[in-house]
């Protein structure tokens, strides 16, 4: 049964078009068809958050969103957002605080954290914990992730840039 559909989307700043099966969810499309391996699949039932990507400026579960639904949408992944703006601050802070271990959850965690920083810039540790609860991390104890996000929140509150990590 072939129901392939033509879709166009703005992906990480570039207009792309493709023909895909409606059953292909967004992350399979990104990973298998476009080779963007940043978003990961941890459960495909919307529980773990490893597949988090940004659609039309909002984080979504990439496994619970069809690629056909993204027709005409703006889609951003860690690859596109990396080393600029909020994400680069978060990346430096995550590295400084060792807020990742195996890294499988990291791209999703970063995108979730970025949305928090944009929507709740005054969050405290508890609010940070609440916000990132949609993203499982099985390696860290979450503590260092909260530390890293707090560093970015506080730096931004003081209008500071998070300073890049260098070797000692």
């Amino acid at each position: 049964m072939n129901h392939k559909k033509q879709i166009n989307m703005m992906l990480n700043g570039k207009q792309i078009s493709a023909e895909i099966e409606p059953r292909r969810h967004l992350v399979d499309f990104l990973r298998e068809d476009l080779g963007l391996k940043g978003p990961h699949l941890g459960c495909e039932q919307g529980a773990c958050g490893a597949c988090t990507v940004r659609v039309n400026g909002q984080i979504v579960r990439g496994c619970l969103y069809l690629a056909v639904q993204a027709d005409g949408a703006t889609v951003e992944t860690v690859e596109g957002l990396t080393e600029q703006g909020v994400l680069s601050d978060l990346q430096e802070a995550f590295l400084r605080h060792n807020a990742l271990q195996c890294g499988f959850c990291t791209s999703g965690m970063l995108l979730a954290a970025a949305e928090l920083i944009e929507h709740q810039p005054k969050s405290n540790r508890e609010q940070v914990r609440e916000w990132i609860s949609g993203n499982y991390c099985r390696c860290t104890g979450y503590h260092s992730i909260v530390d890293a996000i707090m560093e970015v929140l506080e730096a931004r509150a003081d209008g500071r840039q998070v300073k890049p990590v260098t070797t000692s």
Partner: protein
Amino acid sequence: MKAAAFDYVKAKNLVEALALLSEHGEDARLIAGGQTLLATLNLRLSEPSILIDITAVSELKGISVRGNMLRIGALVTHTEIESSDLIAQHAPLLKEAAPHIAHRAIRNLGTWGGSLAYGDPAAEWPACSLALDAIMIIQGPNGVRKVNAKDFFIDLYTTTLQADEILVASEIPLASSNQEHSFQELARRHGDYAAVGLAALIRTDKGKVQTCRLAFFSVAAIPTMASKAQAFIEGKSIDAALIQQAVNLAREEIETLADITNSQETKTHLLGVLLERALTKMMP
């Protein structure tokens, strides 16, 4: 886990959506937020032949005030409810409940209408719609009909919504100044389906309770009102003794169902605790 193959069509407006629904009948499934449907499809627990995407149907969108009613379109997302000033002003119960629904990424897509139409007994919106006396606006091939929330949920995952109908919106009486609410939820992890939950609302007049709505969720096959407890409270002023009697009534009248980690008895106990807390909070 990959979904079985299906076709996909995006409806431009309500008329088209209804037409598509009639055309494809049982083989079709509507997709709005898709946060329940797509998980089910990925798991191959459902294999529809076509999905009808209604996210472009403008008639289902938006939050607005019409006369003395607050209108919430079926496509309004949990995030929109969480951040809407109109909701905060006219249905503060919903603003308080929204953060309990799953997690941000899911709230960004999941919809008011989707949650009501599924009628998951553990979900927040069905219970809230009961507590708020919401009216469901339903459109089918033969036009529009309105159903009160209390008549909308009829059995496990079953509402009065017919296969060829679409839930368009809900209308909720604007919050009044003599109104108090309380939202209580117990979940083992934040964002999980509730172990037990309660959406409560009272309107008082001169210290006496005029109307009382106690809508429990995740206690039975459908969101359940403690009607005996409500009737008992109405016309009285809330005090410790009344609370205790109301708790006993609610525990008696609600036939709880066990879930995977909570026995019937535990649920019965917990619903009483939540009721006690809600009434204490709303006590003038």
